[in-house]
């Protein structure tokens, strides 16, 4: 019996599409079910076409899913749009299931694969309150009934999300919607009710939580979609967590401020999307030259320039790896899902301190603005501040030429360790070797010292994570947000008799060349990326000399599992 359902709530911006989606998701996770939620929206506050998709199952769901089982259409446009076999929503499926909509919507094209359930959403809600958004909650009550779930759990979720009178009204609306469905329609499936409650978390929130557990004491950032969800979560927890939050005048100020903060002895982070990150390049080079640790969160959206501000893409990878002028060490990490966004962000903070270099955590809209269910998260974490000098050292060498390239830091306020940190080339002590007399010997030693840190890091990289790769003949290589959808594509291919597996690149720079070559030996490599040019594919060629096939998507939307399978067949992957 079917235990995996895709639900979509469609309407206009301002219709409460997203908040209804999140409320429904919370109801599912409180049932102990797994969910994946994805927000399709535009760069406007009112109007347009937006929708929120939730996939729910009793097992872990890794992406927003193919198919569509339940549509809640909040207007006529949505009803027609999502039942059209020629649907143009970037890869999302059209409805083959039930459509819940207000009975006042009459003017729609009837499809025989849709079961239309016109319902008195507005007339029920208007008897409770004048709030027009209340009809959404009536519809949510109907969805709960359609899936044979517990209305009391929806009631409890409403009580958490809404307060006071609004809570009472929404609870009443939900109950009436539930009862209406039970009295008039048949359920479409049954989902188990008694699993252990799951965590419901967004990608941006996970980065924020990871940063907090990772020991940041400040987050300084200028708002930019889709990086802002992290800024918002941290700002709303600032007092409770004692984390200083500042929105400065621009991203140049943000990066320089956090460099000042890390220099002064604490962990401080910044974040932005591509456009804001562009402005940080010079600062990232500065941090690397001064060997001041700094973690930057970059959540990509479709570019270039303003691009598609509310759409996803993985188009910034080459830019991130090549940020700033000069030849210098940095690390680039790309978590693949919400859980990894949490764990890799806090790990990035340790790496930055340990190697005293910029570490960039790369996400994108698809990861930063999705929600996922999680069984649990560990809050245990050892903060490793790296190498810090003891006070009062005679002839303190801040940039001592050590074997692994890592030298002791000292913070202002520490006695007897005064020194200069300089954007000019400098020697072990920090004294400039670029001005009065350029010192080519010291210049060479200083470059090598900094670059040795990168070698040390490279030698300590963990092996690549893989999925069903042991007997695979085809290796789908992915990085970042596409982890779950590529894994499911491999599952589908295996069901069709094709031995596919996945290699997941999380530490992108430096790159574990030896492990990559070992793991892909004798297998066909196909790199799946949300960009036009195949940026990781190019990097793989650069780092390993290996040629790859490519599957790319760049229409602003995330991949769907069967889309990858179909593309695989088109390029003759099998």
């Amino acid at each position, binding site marked *: 019996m079917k235990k995996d359902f895709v639900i979509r709530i469609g309407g206009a911006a301002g219709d409460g599409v997203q908040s209804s989606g999140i409320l429904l998701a919370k109801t599912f996770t409180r049932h102990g079910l797994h969910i994946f939620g994805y927000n399709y929206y535009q760069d406007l506050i009112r109007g347009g076409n937006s929708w929120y998709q939730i996939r729910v199952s009793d097992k872990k769901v890794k992406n927003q899913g193919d198919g569509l089982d339940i549509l809640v259409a909040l207007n006529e446009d949505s009803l027609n749009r999502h039942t059209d076999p020629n649907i143009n929503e970037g890869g999302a499926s059209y409805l083959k299931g039930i459509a819940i909509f207000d009975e006042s919507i009459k003017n729609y094209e009837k499809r025989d694969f849709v079961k239309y359930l016109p319902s008195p959403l507005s007339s029920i809600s208007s008897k409770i309150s004048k709030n027009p958004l209340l009809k959404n909650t009536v519809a949510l009550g109907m969805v709960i009934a359609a899936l044979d779930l517990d209305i009391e759990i929806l009631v409890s979720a409403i009580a958490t999300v809404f307060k006071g009178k609004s809570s009472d009204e929404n609870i009443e609306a939900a109950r009436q919607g539930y009862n209406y469905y039970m009295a008039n329609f048949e359920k479409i499936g049954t989902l188990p009710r008694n699993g252990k409650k799951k965590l419901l978390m967004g990608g941006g929130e996970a980065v924020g939580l990871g940063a907090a557990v990772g020991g940041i004491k400040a987050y300084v950032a200028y708002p930019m979609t889709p990086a802002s969800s992290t800024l918002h979560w941290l700002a709303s927890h600032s007092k409770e967590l004692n984390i200083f939050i500042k929105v400065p005048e621009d991203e140049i*100020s943000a990066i320089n401020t956090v460099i000042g903060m890390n220099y002064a002895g604490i962990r401080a982070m910044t974040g932005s999307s591509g456009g804001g990150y562009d402005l940080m390049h010079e600062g990232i080079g500065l941090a690397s030259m001064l060997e001041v640790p700094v973690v930057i969160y970059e959540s990509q959206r479709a570019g270039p320039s303003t691009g598609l501000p509310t759409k996803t893409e993985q188009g910034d990878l080459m830019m991130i790896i090549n940020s700033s002028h000069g030849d210098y060490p940095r690390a680039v990490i790309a978590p693949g899902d919400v859980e990894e966004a949490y764990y890799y962000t806090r790990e990035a903070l340790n790496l930055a301190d340990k190697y005293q270099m910029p570490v960039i955590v790369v996400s994108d809209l698809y990861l930063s603005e999705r929600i996922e269910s999680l069984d649990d998260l560990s809050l245990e974490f050892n903060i490793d501040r790296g190498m810090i000098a003891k006070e009062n050292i005679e002839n303190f060498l801040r940039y001592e030429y050590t074997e692994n390239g890592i030298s002791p830091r000292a913070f*202002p306020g520490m006695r007897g360790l005064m020194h200069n940190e300089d954007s000019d080339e400098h020697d072990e002590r920090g004294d400039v070797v670029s001005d009065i007399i350029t010192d080519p010997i010291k210049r060479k030693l200083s470059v090598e010292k900094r670059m040795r840190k990168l070698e040390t890091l490279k030698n300590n990289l963990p092996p690549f994570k893989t999925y069903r790769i042991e007997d695979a003949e085809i290796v789908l290589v992915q990085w970042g947000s596409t982890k779950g959808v590529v894994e499911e594509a491999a599952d589908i291919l295996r069901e069709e008799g094709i031995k596919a597996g996945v290699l997941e690149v999380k530490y992108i720079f430096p790159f574990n060349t030896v492990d990559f070559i070992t793991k892909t030996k004798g297998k066909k490599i196909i790199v799946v990326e949300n960009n036009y040019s195949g940026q990781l594919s190019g990097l793989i060629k650069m780092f390993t000399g290996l040629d790859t096939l490519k599957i790319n998507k760049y229409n602003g939307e995330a991949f769907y599992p069967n889309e990858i399978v179909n593309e695989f067949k088109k390029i003759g992957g099998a």
Partner: protein
Amino acid sequence: MVTLKDYDYHVKPDWCPGCGNFSQWTAIKGALVELGIEPHNVVIVSGIGCSSNMPEYIRAYGFHGLHGRPLPVASGIKFTNSKLTVIAYGGDGDGYYEGLNHLYHTAKRNVDVKYIVSDNEVFGLTTGQASPTAPLGFVSKTTPPPEGSLEVPVNPLTLALTAGATFVARGYSGEIKHLQSLIVEALKHKGFALIDVLSPCVTWNKIATYEYYRERVYKLQGNDVTNFDNAYKLATESSDKIPIGIFYKVEKPTYNDIDPVLKQGPLTEKNVEIKKDILEEFY
């Protein structure tokens, strides 16, 4: 006891002989000694330009960063550890061209950093091009004759006043003791302080010379430093008579005083404690 020797570093300045920066170098160290501030509690943050090499020549904590960006770095340091004395330092190109927006916002926030600008009206290190404070008609490699500079110069003092700076002063490199007294007052002031220092560039600026300033500069005396209108008027006085001294000085809470997290003390002394119930909101 702190002495000048404590601030003495083995690297010596490489400015041109006669450069106004030498006086500032002396005055900064003198002011720190006068107030008995120990070198390990001092951070000097600079941008890029001749003057911005300053932290390389003082035995304290030095941060020689990017062109135009000393104020965000200095703010970050002060936000982190309010116990430190944080001096931001640079030239007029650095502070009034490339990084001007930071001046406005740092002043507005009243971050407790002291910003000293060596103002010589030219880009010294890149061979004397007109800077944002160069006068109309100033001839340089980038502003050839007969027109010279076509831009009205930036007035840093009125700008800082407008932004809400709580301490605004002008010094002159030819008056070291006076300059040192201004720096002492700025360091004693709780909040953002701007000291614009008229500083002859002996190599590239043949107009704003020591002689030029000697004839025009006069020391402010008895002006009401709490009177905004008067400060603004003095700051716009014509170039025949150039006042130096404190134009404006008022007490207001600093950013560290009002921020709910920062007002509890230095971030360096705080441990972020993650309670298990942080996960509750996600259920």
